[in-house]
């Protein structure tokens, strides 16, 4: 299935759930449960927390399904809910990932537009992520997870995290530099 087909299928299933068809929700849960757990686990660093968070995410998504706009990607919407749950958990544990006034989101950043990463760079990044992701700050860790593991575009990450597209680019660049630096130091 192409990405477009998946989005169409998601939207159709979500609309069916909006009309009270619970069975259609199975399709969405089956499709997104494992990827969301992987995302939450990488972000929080704890499998148990990740499983609990994703459970809550799907309950919340079900309760608020009529808020979902079928003209937009369901994946972005469900990832956004997951992001909020993860951030709330970190705040409750006094480990706030991002300060309220983050200069990254206030000023523009002149960076290169998003280009498809070649396979060599992608493999390098996946290797670095596997070894050193926990050493990254949460505000850099999250876009790395969303881009390299969940394979989200800059625009989708902007919609998930509610940060400017240029900020997504600059955080990914800094994350890549930091991971390479950590590797060089070890």
């Amino acid at each position, binding site marked *: 299935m192409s990405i477009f087909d998946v989005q169409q299928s998601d939207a159709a299933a979500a609309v069916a*759930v*909006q009309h*009270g068809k*619970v069975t259609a*929700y*199975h399709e969405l*849960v*089956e*499709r*997104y*449960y*494992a*990827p969301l*757990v*992987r995302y939450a686990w990488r972000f929080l660093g704890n499998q148990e927390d990740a*499983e609990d968070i994703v*459970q809550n995410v*799907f*309950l919340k998504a*079900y*309760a*608020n*399904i*009529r*808020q979902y706009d079928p003209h937009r990607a369901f994946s972005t919407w469900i990832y956004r809910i997951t992001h909020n749950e993860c951030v709330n958990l970190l705040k409750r544990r006094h480990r706030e990932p991002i300060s309220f006034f983050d200069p990254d*989101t*206030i*000023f*523009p*950043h002149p960076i290169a537009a998003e280009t498809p990463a070649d396979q060599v760079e992608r493999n390098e990044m996946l290797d670095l992520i596997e070894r050193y992701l926990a050493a990254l700050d949460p505000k850099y860790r999250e876009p790395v997870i969303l881009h390299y593991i969940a394979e989200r575009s800059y*625009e989708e990450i*902007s*919609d998930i995290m*509610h*940060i*400017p*597209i*240029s*900020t997504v680019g600059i955080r990914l660049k800094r994350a890549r530099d930091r991971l390479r630096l950590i590797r060089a130091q070890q």
Partner: protein
Amino acid sequence: MATPTDNQSHRITALFERIERGDVHIKSRLRFIATTVLFAAAFIVALACAIFLMSFALFMFRMSGASALPVFGLRGARVLILVTPWIIILSGVALIAATILLMRRIPTAYRRPAIYSAVAAAIIIGALAFAVARSPFHATLRSRGNSLPVLGPFYRYQRIDRLQGVRVGTVVSIGDSELTLVTAVGEIRVTTTAVTRYPQDRKIIPGDRIIVIGEQVGGEFRALAIRPDDSRWRDGYRQRGPIDEPPPINAHGTLWNSVNPAPRPHGRSI
């Protein structure tokens, strides 16, 4: 996409058991529509209040005569600080910030750096505030005086000529080192010295309305700087208390006003 593991499958089953048991219900669409309407209303209210407060500050600034003070440079700065309605301006800035925060909920705003939203809000609110300040809106509200509920007392602002170190009036005569002004409180004598600064682009002649910044020393007022008063603060001649003061009269005993200006007497200039 990856399929759930066995453990995750158990959790998915438990999830649907909770849904079927009725532990969670789908919220009605009306609730989300109401939330959207609420945020839109909050945005409009914040925007309207910001425009009102900033236009009010501009109006007060102009009516007090303070708009003429910047030409005095640092000398006018102290007076400017005293007459500037800081509370109104800071409240307006807080409302502008609230407007920006509400605006950043929509993709068009949050996909771009926050500075763009801030600049757009400042330009739009600034332009609208300027337009409202120049319109008869505030003058109309002001004319209702204390009968205006809540806002009435806020329209009583301080004229600059009520402050220490500032005199505003019409020149009656000019001497060697002094000039005589007719002000709202009567005729006063202003002493000029070697350090007094005059306007560079025109001469002051009898009949001119001027602003003088200086200091009261004994019975005389020593001028540090003199500028013509070209502002139209006369239109919103404002005072404390319920009774309107009459406009100042010139040396010929006729009323000075923009419609019927007194003829300029011939005499010395400075």
